[in-house]
């Protein structure tokens, strides 16, 4: 599989460096790390709670693209599909802390959870107040008998809603509770037509025939719950909605945010066709959607596929979603 890279080992540092060079007005790299931080005036002057996230690379623009006013204070890039290490996360926590503490937004993978926990311990030795929330929005599998559900595209809703609340002055405890509530009300499933090819490996992570697709994939090339014949966009949309809506306790007054997310190699054209099917079908089901976002938001390297996220909006979340953000990718 051809890639526009130099050496495989240099991809992550070069990517981080390319991003920081491209948007120096928004972000700066923290010395001796693959972490970046906000550098806008509001951050420098502010006393907000810091928000830190991060994880393995390969999901760009997550997380680096969501650093900036109204979202993350800092983010850490690990090796491809590999959690960053505690020392790096710790550096990001120190950068993000303005005395009001730091909220860690962690995707639920063993590696991430453990590395962030160790970083939290390091920061707490320094008397930095730290809380962590674990995003587990992927409802492709039941939670029993596993590490728990995976954290996938819903992560950006947690980052956006908490980011807006932090900017507005919410406390660390409030943000941890808000973030957990967003997680509890956010559900995602992904599908793939082709698996991703990890740099250095010269074939896709799993094989799908020319007429096959996989339901329930993860963003690290994890296979899903069913390999099926390729279906029309509208059929896929209806199937994913069924699965996702079954995981909510639905109220007639519900309002939802919808995220249609391209997994890396999916043209926007297909994403909008899919979004059309999703929104048309949700309207038919009397599910009210008041916020939609479409694009390559949380990717799986060059996987061809999409994920669908629904978030059952509570309180003022709709306002927080629409609050100003100045990041590379939101």
């Amino acid at each position, binding site marked *: 599989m051809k890639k526009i890279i130099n050496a495989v080992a240099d991809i992550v540092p070069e990517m981080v460096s390319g991003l920081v060079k491209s948007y120096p007005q928004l972000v700066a790299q923290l010395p001796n790390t693959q972490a970046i931080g906000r550098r806008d005036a509001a951050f420098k002057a502010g006393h907000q709670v810091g928000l830190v996230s991060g994880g*393995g690379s390969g999901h760009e623009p997550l997380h680096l693209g969501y650093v900036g006013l109204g979202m993350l204070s800092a983010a850490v890039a*690990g*090796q491809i*599909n*590999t*959690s*960053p*290490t*505690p*020392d*790096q996360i710790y550096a990001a926590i120190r950068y993000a802390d303005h005395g009001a503490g730091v909220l860690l937004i962690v995707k639920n*993978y*063993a*590696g991430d959870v*453990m*590395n962030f*926990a*160790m970083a939290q311990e390091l920061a707490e030795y320094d008397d930095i107040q730290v809380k962590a929330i674990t995003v587990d929005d992927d409802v492709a*599998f039941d939670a029993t*008998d*596993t*590490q728990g559900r*995976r954290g996938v595209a819903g992560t950006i809703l947690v980052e956006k809603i908490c980011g807006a609340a932090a900017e507005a002055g919410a406390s660390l405890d409030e943000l941890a509770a808000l973030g957990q509530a967003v997680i509890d009300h956010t559900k995602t499933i992904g599908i793939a037509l082709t698996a991703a090819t*990890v740099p250095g*490996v010269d074939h896709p*992570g799993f094989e799908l025939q020319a007429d096959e697709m996989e339901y329930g994939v*993860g963003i*690290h*090339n*994890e*296979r899903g719950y069913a390999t099926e014949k390729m279906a029309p966009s509208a059929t896929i949309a209806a199937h994913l909605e069924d699965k996702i809506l079954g995981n909510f306790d639905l109220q007639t007054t519900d309002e939802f945010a919808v995220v249609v997310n391209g997994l890396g190699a999916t043209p926007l054209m297909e994403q909008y066709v899919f979004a059309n099917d999703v929104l048309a079908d949700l309207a038919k089901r009397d599910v009210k959607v008041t916020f939609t976002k479409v694009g390559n938001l949380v990717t799986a390297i060059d996987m061809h596929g999409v994920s669908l996220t629904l978030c059952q909006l509570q309180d003022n979340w709709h306002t927080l979603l629409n609050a100003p953000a100045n990041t590379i990718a939101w």
Partner: protein
Amino acid sequence: SMLDETLLFKWMTEFDHQIQTDKAYLSGLDAEIGDGDHGDNMARGMSAVMHTFKTPNQSVAEQLKAIAFALISKVGGAAGPLYGSAFLRMSKAAVDTQQLDQLIQIGADAIADRGGANFGDKTMLDVWAYVPAMLEHHTLSSAGLAQLAAHTKPMQAKKGRASYLGERSVGHLDPGAVSSQELFQALLKAQSA
């Protein structure tokens, strides 16, 4: 038996050698039920570990701590904090005792605390947990270690990436169990050298 500076150096040297040799094999095991990087993660970490021996005259405790920090900051993923926590907790204990079986027991406890896995969850714990008693009773052998790792094959994973595969994880060796097997086989070699 006791862990002294010389044994620790020999142990890590043997382990590093084995990991670098088996890098592709371990990543291959991880590709079957995980994300295919365990060998690379461990190899990166062990290269860093070997660098820590360049600082002269460290006590066992200091050396274990340096190893822990190397593993924590270089391995990444799940294996980094697990191996790292084990060595970090061992380094703290080593101030008071150099009894090998006790130290490994403390390492195994650290892994269980950090990862929250139970025995039989198809993780490295399925090797670590049995080693202290074997050491204590002088029954630790290379073949026995291989058996411990082999026992993870029929297990269904309940922790780590492999757990997402559900029943599809059955029939594969757990890569972390295999690298742990190699860790303790390296200890045996170091002891007999």
